């Protein structure tokens, strides 16, 4: 929806009362702001109005007949009556009409108890029907995809779902068919509503016609308690309401937040709550017995686990050994801060990294100046996207970019590899950053530059250097939005889970910050940057890391070189894994600690804009699983360090005190209307480094294809795998290639190929099914990440395809 830019308001008369409204604003919205609720079914504040349901008819002086309030814009001096006998009679008539074919099967309908049709019937309906004929019948319910069921008998044809599918999601796979008495919502036979946003139609359906399979028959609205929270699925930070019944999470609904998500959620965000209640959660601390066989863990008490880890730390520190930590992007800000503080104060090291060499340089992410927020998209004169496939990795960010481009007409330039979602809307697509010419940009106005890691095989430093160079070239009017993918990774970087950064977007050698920290932190840590993830694993392979904390991360899956990651874990004498689930990393752990996760821990998170938002705890963690922050604090206290940070609230107060960019962030700022949109953090004091820019011709001279490794929305990630409703949805082991390249190579669509690194030292050898895709640039082979066994990804790799006959 276009935002109303008109600042001035005009008086209108609403039921005889004078109220102020913005000219051009729809009457239904203006009335609601003035405290008058006009009943409606088809109107939704984030969808274009269609005036189909006729429920919002009101009297407007001087206009003939009754007017749909969702379709009439406010004009100065307008006289509107919403409560007259005529309006009430019409409301009764409309409801009687809408109920003609409605089955009234409320007792067995998921929507019962929270159904707009039910509620409106009680509030505005006639109470009885004159219709005695037989209602129309359809087969019920029919699946429209793997997550959503359609019951056409309940449908009142409001077109919310079809408008969402075509206008918001850009997946017009849900349509009205036939007309008159036969009008029905339908998908094409054998062509399901395969949208990453399908769950939204369930949420906006004003009746029970669309229900979600995971929630079906799970609870009644009066059986649940609800808390507002922030989705932890990716770094966008969509707001939502989490429902719980009998200590189980059963539903997650989007909550409208003008700054970020507009009430939408992607299906992963919406349905992934299932993993929280999975049977496979880690519930007790496990210790590897020295003499036992490889995977013989024995259960220990928390006290014993803490004691033994503390002893190890003391021993290693005494001997001058090395301690390091990787991961932490899953944590809340408070937990990440605790880990950051623990590593500095207790372990005396800067060897921490929340990225697994799959993102961007942390100093670029934390230090970029003149940053963009999502609401800048629609106001920009140009959006330049040099990042991953947003639809696959940051789905609701994709919706917001798509809205700016498709509905607001902002031109989009896409740089780089296939974009399943946005390539089709781009004004121009460039193969590589080197090929992009800023001269093509219109001269006037703001440029929003979205920068992310496009491929695991891409040189991240070259990418950030290019972005900094471009913004320097274009000057002040460039607003940068560095984007990373994983959950609270931006918050983790802000909390100092980076070898070169301290909490609050400052560098480890920042004297002022160190001074301030020294007042709160007791303990010494070096003023030089530590090792990043790759360097930590490198050192571990050489046997130079004595204790490695792996916090909510699986380097064997996510680090670009799983072979090296495995060797690193094998050669580290003491590996402590804190996680929700057993993973391939826990197999190499000496200690496995059960962590509490999303929905179980309260606190704050920071999204990719730098927007701090709250997360809520709605269920208690299973078994003995505990917040990571509690674990670090207990180990610290066992070593007689006065750690503080006893509660998330206390930790946030400490963050606000010591972290420059987080100054002034406090719980009180999340209250009220303004607080609903979170708190944007301030600028830090990090100067992003630059390195060698891109080679002019990124395409090597050999015959090989450039390797692109991007993320797919559905993958083998632990959290998705632990959701029964989602685990079967991934595309599987495929490789996407442009049809012309396939024709040239004599490979047919759908056949099997081997993908081999051209460099014999590259160790990449994959068996994949070929999918022809015109959106993949010529000369590129695109392999979705984490669909099958992990594989080695070399930066700048070129590969060959070998036909298997």
């Amino acid at each position, binding site marked *: 929806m276009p935002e109303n830019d008109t600042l001035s308001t005009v008086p209108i008369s609403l039921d005889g009362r004078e109220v102020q409204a913005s000219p051009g604003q729809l009457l239904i919205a203006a009335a609601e702001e003035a405290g008058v609720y006009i009943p409606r079914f088809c109107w939704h504040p984030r969808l274009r109005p269609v005036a189909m349901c006729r429920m919002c008819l009101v009297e407007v002086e001087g206009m003939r007949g009754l007017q749909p309030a969702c379709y009439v814009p406010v004009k100065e001096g307008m006289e509107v009556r919403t409560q007259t006998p005529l309006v009430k009679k019409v409301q009764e008539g409309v409801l009687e009409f809408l109920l003609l074919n409605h089955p009234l099967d409320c007792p067995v309908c998921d929507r019962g108890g929270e159904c707009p049709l039910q509620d409106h019937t009680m509030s505005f309906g006639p109470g009885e029907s004159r219709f005695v004929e037989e209602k129309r019948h359809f087969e019920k319910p029919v699946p429209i995809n793997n997550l959503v069921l359609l019951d056409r008998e309940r449908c009142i044809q409001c077109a919310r779902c079809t408008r969402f599918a075509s206008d918001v999601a850009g997946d017009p796979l849900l349509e009205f*068919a*036939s*007309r008159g008495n036969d009008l029905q919502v339908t998908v*094409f036979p054998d*062509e399901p509503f395969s949208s990453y946003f399908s769950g939204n139609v369930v949420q906006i359906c004003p009746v029970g016609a669309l229900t979600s399979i995971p929630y079906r028959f799970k609870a009644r609205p009066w059986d649940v308690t609800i808390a507002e929270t922030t989705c932890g699925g990716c770094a966008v930070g969509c707001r939502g309401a989490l429902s719980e019944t009998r200590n189980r999470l059963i539903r997650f609904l989007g909550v409208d937040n003008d700054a970020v998500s507009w009430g939408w959620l992607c299906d992963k965000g919406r349905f992934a709550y299932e993993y929280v209640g999975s049977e496979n959660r880690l519930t007790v601390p496990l210790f590897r017995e020295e003499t036992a066989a490889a995977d013989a863990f024995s259960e220990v008490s928390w006290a014993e686990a803490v004691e033994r880890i503390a002893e190890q730390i003391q021993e290693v520190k005494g001997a001058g050994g090395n301690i390091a930590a990787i991961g932490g992007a899953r944590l809340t800000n408070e937990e990440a801060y605790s880990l950051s503080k623990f590593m500095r104060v207790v372990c005396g090291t800067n060897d921490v990294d929340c990225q697994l060499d799959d993102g961007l340089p942390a100093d670029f992410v934390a230090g970029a100046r003149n940053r963009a927020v999502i609401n800048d998209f629609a106001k920009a004169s140009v959006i330049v996207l040099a990042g991953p496939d947003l639809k696959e990795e940051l789905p609701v960010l994709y919706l917001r970019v798509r809205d700016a481009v498709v509905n607001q007409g902002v031109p989009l330039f896409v740089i780089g590899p296939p974009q399943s979602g946005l390539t089709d809307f781009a004004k121009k697509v460039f193969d590589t950053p080197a090929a992009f010419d800023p001269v093509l940009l219109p001269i006037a106005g703001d440029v929003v530059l979205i920068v992310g890691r496009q491929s695991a095989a891409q040189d991240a430093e070259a990418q950030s250097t290019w972005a900094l160079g471009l913004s320097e070239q274009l000057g002040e009017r460039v607003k940068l939005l560095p984007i990373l993918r994983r959950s609270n990774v931006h918050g983790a970087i802000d909390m100092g889970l980076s070898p070169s950064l301290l909490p609050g977007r400052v560098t480890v050698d920042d004297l002022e910050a160190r001074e301030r920290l020294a007042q709160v932190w007791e303990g010494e840590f070096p003023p030089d940057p530590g090792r990043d993830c790759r360097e930590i694993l490198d050192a571990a392979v050489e046997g130079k890391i004595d204790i490695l904390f792996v916090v909510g991360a699986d380097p064997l899956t996510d680090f670009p070189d799983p072979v090296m990651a495995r060797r690193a874990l094998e050669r580290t004498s003491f590996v402590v894994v804190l996680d929700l689930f057993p993973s391939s990393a826990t197999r190499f752990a000496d200690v496995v600690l059960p962590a509490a996760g999303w929905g179980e821990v309260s606190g704050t998170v920071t999204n990719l804009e730098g927007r701090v938002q709250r997360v809520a705890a709605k269920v208690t963690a299973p078994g003995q699983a505990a917040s990571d922050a509690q674990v670090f604090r207990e180990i610290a206290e066992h070593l007689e360090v006065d750690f503080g940070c006893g509660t998330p609230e206390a930790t946030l107060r400490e963050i606000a005190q010591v972290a420059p960019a987080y100054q002034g962030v406090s719980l009180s700022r999340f209250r009220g209307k303004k607080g609903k949109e979170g708190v944007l953090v301030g600028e830090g004091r990090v100067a992003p480094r630059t390195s060698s820019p891109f080679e002019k011709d990124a395409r090597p001279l050999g015959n090989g294809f450039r390797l692109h490794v991007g993320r797919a929305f559905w993958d083998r990630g632990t959290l998705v795998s632990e959701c029964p409703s989602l685990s079967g949805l991934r595309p599987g082991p495929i490789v996407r290639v442009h049809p012309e390249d396939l024709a040239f190579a004599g490979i047919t669509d759908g056949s099997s190929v081997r993908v081999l690194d051209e460099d014999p030292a590259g160790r990449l050898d994959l068996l994949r099914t070929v999918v022809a895709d015109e959106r993949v640039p010529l000369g590129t082979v695109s392999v979705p990440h984490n669909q099958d066994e992990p594989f080695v990804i070399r930066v700048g790799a070129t590969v060959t395809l070998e036909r298997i006959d």
Partner: protein
Amino acid sequence: MTLNASDKVFVKERLERAREIMLRYPDSRSALLPLLHELQDAAGYVTQSGMREIADLLGITPAEVLGTASFYTMFKLEPIGDHLVSVCTSLSCQLYGADVLYRNLLAHFAVANKKTTADGVFTFEEVECAAACGGAPCLQIDYKYFEFLDPEKAVELLEDVRNRGLSIVHEERGSVNAPLPPLTPEEVSKGPAPVGSGPLSETAREEGHG
């Protein structure tokens, strides 16, 4: 029809014609209706695979094609017989006994509304006003008009079509082939006959339409 359900419709000349049709519009998706006509002409009805082909040609989804195709009752989404018999049952024809005529036809051919006879020759449908009120009651066979019918004449007409073929029969008795005699000055001055006093008033009254 010589096409099988699985055959591609838009190939060779038909594909060329489709592309030529698409070029007539500034936005190629405007060619959706003409392409649906092409599909129905070629395949006998709007096939699922044909709708997919159109979706591919126009860069829209098959669901969007289906949404449009199913809106128009003259696009058939199911296979139909050799001839489509459309019986008008709107006001004028109904006053002249179209309901009885249609029910009689269905009974004679032992078939239901919107269904095809066992021999595959006729598919029957009831339609809204066929715009031939002056010749009520009327029906169309493959959109060719036959007017001034009654239940017996209609059966006889269809049997004739089945035996001799539509083109010959239409040539001989199609369209306005039995006009009523012009009104006498007396009748004109009397004004329109009261409802229910028409030629089929007996039947109409029995059927409760009086």
